[in-house]
């Protein structure tokens, strides 16, 4: 939990850059593949050679329309592009084509769920299209910088929130919610480590009850959910301690240093940046026909919130389990496949969020790379349901499946793990245990009820965990009455 002083309130807005998963660039037909040799995917348009003109990628419009719908926002038509002027070698044109007055997506909101089960509405001011810059490399060039323009012109959509966020936890919940949406829509891979999703945080603090906003700072360079939480918390605490010791906050851009867990100011400029926005003369206003929007929206998949509700209704899972599963589309699909095989939604959900998640975390694997397939896990659960094995033995089988990749039934067969359900066999084990422990029997009979558990344990041990616990309980109860 956040520990900052109770008389202070944080006011946070996030700007999230999402790299759109197109084949080609926003305004050119060059490839957007990640990891190509430097400048092999930078064509004459990306290089801003004289005489070239940008031509808009239609797919990007579809992606933005879907995002706008998922964010409960208005889609602007016409929407127009603007030039944002700045000098830097990774932007050969001397400007970035972005959107200013008429962003494609405007006035939306997102309801986020917090850990205590409450939900909160975060306003989305706008989401606009823009092109990414190239990359500068500063090492190894003897006082010069090397420029790779492969990324220049890659389509981005920047999602700007209202300053409705009041804690690092809320910021992470909002970010995760956006991440889940873009993955569901398949408009981005959302890989923060590779920079497909980047987050800048505008943070200010004020005394609780105050209507005035404090001076804000913008923290850049935050590339994981955990770092977003840490960077914001650091910035809140820094600002409070500055103000409490009589200093003022400077409006500035700061960089997050994940190794030191601090933020530090970027070089302060003599004059505030003036980007001199003006309408992009090389591009006409974009009109989105009703038919285009309608056809695009028809391709919308089931969204996380809808899926969550369906899980609650169709599988009778709790709200909590449903939202955990629905947050990740691949996880949700995995769950449905497991349930399809096992016919038990509740057990399937428990196994996925328990054993399976633990193993995935241990090996740092995504659900798509799970060593146990959905079908295999479904079969394992089926074997618990039909009493072939106990839940406890199932955990051993699970471990063996994870390391060997063998099928469930093969492991049960090979290791002789079938549950003992033969009543006479269990009865003789119970008799043996009672006879071998006369002292405990005496104590039990004289009123020490707690010892019942001891007998159950001994019988389970005798059966090497293979006895059906329910049957053991029942038989023991009968025998001990005698």
């Amino acid at each position: 939990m956040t520990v900052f002083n109770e008389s202070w309130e944080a006011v946070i807005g996030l700007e999230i850059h999402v790299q759109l998963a197109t084949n080609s660039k926003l305004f050119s037909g060059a490839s957007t593949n990640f990891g190509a040799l430097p400048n092999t995917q930078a064509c004459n348009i990306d290089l801003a050679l004289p005489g070239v003109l940008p031509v808009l990628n239609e797919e990007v419009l579809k992606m933005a329309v879907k995002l706008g719908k998922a964010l409960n926002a208005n889609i602007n038509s016409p929407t127009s592009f603007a030039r944002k002027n700045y000098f830097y070698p990774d932007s050969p044109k001397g400007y970035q084509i972005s959107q200013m007055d008429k962003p494609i997506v405007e006035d939306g909101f997102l309801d986020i769920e917090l850990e205590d089960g409450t939900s909160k509405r975060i306003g989305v001011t706008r989401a606009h299209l823009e092109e990414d810059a190239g990359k500068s490399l500063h090492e190894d060039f003897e006082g010069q910088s090397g420029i790779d323009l492969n990324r220049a012109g890659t389509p981005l959509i920047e999602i700007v929130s209202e300053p409705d966020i009041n804690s690092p936890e809320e910021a992470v919940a909002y970010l995760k919610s956006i991440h889940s949406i873009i993955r569901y829509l398949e408009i981005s891979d959302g890989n923060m480590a590779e920079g497909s999703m980047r987050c800048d945080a505008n943070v200010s603090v004020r005394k609780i009850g105050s209507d005035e906003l404090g001076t804000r700072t913008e923290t850049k360079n935050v590339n994981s959910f955990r770092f977003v939480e840490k960077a914001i918390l650091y910035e809140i605490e820094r600002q409070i301690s500055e103000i409490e010791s009589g200093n003022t906050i400077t409006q500035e851009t700061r960089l997050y240093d994940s190794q030191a867990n601090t933020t530090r100011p970027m070089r302060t400029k003599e004059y505030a940046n003036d980007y001199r926005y003006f309408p992009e003369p090389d591009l006409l206003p974009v009109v989105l026909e009703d038919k285009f929007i309608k056809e695009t929206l028809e391709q919308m998949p089931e969204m996380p919130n809808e899926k969550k509700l369906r899980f609650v209704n169709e599988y009778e899972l709790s709200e909590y389990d449903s939202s955990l599963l629905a947050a990740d589309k691949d996880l949700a699909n995995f769950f449905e496949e497991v349930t399809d095989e096992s016919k038990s939604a509740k057990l399937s959900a428990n196994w996925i969020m328990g054993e399976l998640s633990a193993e995935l975390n241990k090996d740092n694997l995504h659900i798509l790379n799970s060593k146990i397939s959905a079908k295999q896990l479904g079969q394992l659960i089926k074997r618990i349901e039909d009493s072939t094995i106990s839940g406890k033995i199932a955990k051993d089988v699970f471990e063996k499946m994870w390391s060997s990749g063998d099928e469930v039934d093969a492991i049960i067969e090979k290791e002789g793990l079938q549950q003992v359900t033969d009543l006479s066999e269990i009865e003789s084990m119970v008799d043996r245990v009672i006879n071998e422990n006369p002292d405990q029997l005496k104590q039990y009979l004289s009123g020490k009820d707690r010892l019942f558990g001891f007998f159950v344990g001994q019988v389970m041990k005798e059966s090497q965990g293979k006895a059906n616990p329910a049957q053991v309980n029942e038989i023991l109860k009968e025998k001990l009455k005698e």
Partner: protein
Amino acid sequence: MALSDKELNEIAYLARINIDKDSFPALKGELEQILDLFEKLNLAETDEVEAMSHPLNLSQPTRPDEVTEEDQREKLQETAPSVQSGLFLVPKVIEGEN
């Protein structure tokens, strides 16, 4: 509308133009005339007029999302002043560091 020396300096900085002190009075006079003209334009009644971001009454055509550009790095770098390992070399510029 009067322009201060400070404002003129800022405009020159943003435009990356070096101007010497001697030309200040003349430049200020010219810029002030331009600003006055904009002030006059601002008086025009435009409430009923739809905003226009482009003089042509057309909408932007689009292209399908296909890779159509082949790698032409060698050719494109022929005219570059300095290249190493496929990278364009430029004077060192670092933003974001102290």
